[in-house]
């Protein structure tokens, strides 16, 4: 267990190093400078700016000094929002995104597992067929399509819910729903398939033969095994939620990392982009490590290698 975690942590560090290097070099080597997109800056001023932001000298020197700063935990100052350091921007936006993401994450799993089990219980009957058609429709309607439709219907047509901002409870409902519904559809499909497979196994027949009632069999015996694929889907799910939340934050005007990232890419604000990409990758890789460990705890047959 310990050597496994150790090896994974080393791999994580290597990956983070690659990610940071690639992002920096790509953004820096691309033509155009991060200080102004359309206006030409006098060379002397540009030189001053570059030395202030640690972007003077050869590309190798710039890269090494940036790498040193990142290792020290200093993600530097934004070249666009010049009074802000990337650390400050992250400190403000990351909690918002994390709150939205984790609520959506839990809701996705909850919806998905309940609906998937329900469909498996009624396999082949109309409940199952219609639920699975809805789930397929859910997969086909991503968050950024659902969001304007929900705004149009619940926000503007019915006037029930507020359509932008972040803070009040009613401002949470639409973004969280838009973010989690499409992915609950895929979780539901996953749960249904895996539950149906588990239900054909011998230990379920034994449970039935003992006279246990069907709901107990499902919850106590079958779901426990059937949820393993869901656990391994948690990593990709988090990655999807993360990219999905970029648009959802943009549409609902939520002050999270997403809109900052998009704007910074367009503004060539390379330190903000670098910082956010670093955080994104770090979150996802830690979650994946956690999921892998959890997996072995749930299923003793799997050995870490």
């Amino acid at each position, binding site marked *: 267990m310990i050597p496994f975690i150790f090896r994974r942590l080393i*791999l994580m560090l290597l*990956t983070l190093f690659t*990610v940071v290097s690639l*992002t920096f070099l*790509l*953004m820096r*080597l*691309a*033509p*155009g400078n991060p200080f102004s997109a359309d206006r030409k800056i006098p060379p002397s001023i540009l030189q001053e700016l570059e030395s202030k932001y640690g972007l003077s000298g050869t590309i190798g020197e710039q890269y090494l000094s940036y790498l040193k700063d990142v290792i020290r935990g200093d993600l530097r100052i934004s070249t666009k929002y010049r009074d802000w350091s990337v650390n400050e921007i992250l400190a403000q936006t990351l909690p918002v995104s994390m709150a939205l993401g984790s609520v959506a994450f839990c809701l996705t799993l909850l919806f998905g597992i309940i609906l998937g089990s329900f469909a498996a219980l009624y396999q082949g009957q109309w409940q199952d067929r219609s639920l699975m058609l809805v789930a*397929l*429709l859910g*997969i*086909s*309607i*991503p968050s*950024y*399509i659902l*969001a*304007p*439709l929900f*705004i*149009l219907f619940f926000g*503007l*047509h019915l006037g029930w819910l507020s359509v932008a901002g972040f803070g009040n409870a009613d401002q949470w409902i639409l973004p969280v729903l838009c973010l989690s519904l499409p992915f609950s559809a895929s979780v539901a499909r996953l749960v249904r398939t895996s539950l149906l497979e588990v239900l054909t196994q011998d230990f379920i027949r034994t449970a039935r033969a003992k006279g246990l009632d069907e709901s107990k069999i499902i919850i106590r015996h079958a779901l426990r095994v059937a949820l393993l694929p869901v656990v391994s889907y948690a*990593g*990709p799910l988090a*990655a999807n939620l*993360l*990219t999905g939340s*970029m*648009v959802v934050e*943009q*549409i609902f005007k939520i002050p999270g990392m997403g809109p900052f*990232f*998009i704007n910074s*890419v*367009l503004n*060539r604000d390379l330190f903000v*982009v670098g910082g956010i*990409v670093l955080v*994104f*990758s770090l979150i*996802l*890789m830690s979650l*994946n490590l956690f999921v892998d460990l959890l997996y072995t705890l749930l299923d003793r047959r799997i050995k870490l290698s």
Partner: protein
Amino acid sequence: MKASLLQILWRDSFLRATLIAFFALLIIALFGSFFLEHPQDQNSALQFSPPCSEHWLGTDFHGRDLLARLLSGLRLSLFVGSIGAGVSLVIGVSVGLIAGYFGKKIDLILMRLVDLLYSLPRLVFVIVLISALEKPTAHFLEKIHLSEMLPHVRLLLLFIGLGCVEWLTMARIVRGQVLSLKESTFVLAARALGQSHTQILIRHLLPNLTGIVIVYLTLTIPVVILEESFLSFLGLGVQAPAASLGSLISEGAQYLNPFEIQWWLILFPAGTMALLLLMLNLLGDGLRDAMDPRKKK
């Protein structure tokens, strides 16, 4: 093999209906524009006209006919989807073949890479890639005298970027198949007859993979279309005046306000998108289930 895939779809009445509907949509997308009286000319007098007998789906901010825009958007989305999925197919099948056939160290390294990429925010990289490489690619195209390609730099980068991140599942599936196929006697026979590894890979293993590859290609196309529209929605995909389903939805979302509701601008593109993806997913799912040996009744 191809004929039998179509036969599988044809046998199930629901899938048959889906297939027919899909081809109908394809034909409308490809040839519908020829029958339209209103090409995409701008007419500010007709700004935001709701659906009427003249403009079936209404008009947009510039007074352009939404139906005409929608058809060209549908074409572009399908185009990006197929080419992007094609790129992912080439990468995924090659990686899967090599990893599965040669095994050992190569397999370990390649599959570790796949695992790693699965755990990273791949679309984020595509976003960075597109914004960073746009100008260099344009310069490159000018240098090799392909200036007429310049308006399509974004499209080109979309194909490459999306293809480069969507090959993972394909690689895994192909590898799994190759692992079991390479133990079969016909591979051994080919080897005994003195065929080279490349010959075995291309002549013997590849043809056996056609079925499963087509199935996953069908399932990759909707994913690529989704991602393209995601990027277009954020303003990083196709550029105006060209339209894709994603950019149309994004335009419609821009004009959402509580005072004047232009519902047709969002409802029709979103509906078309959902319909297209639903059909592609239905067909792909149907094929995958039919090919799954465990599901034979």
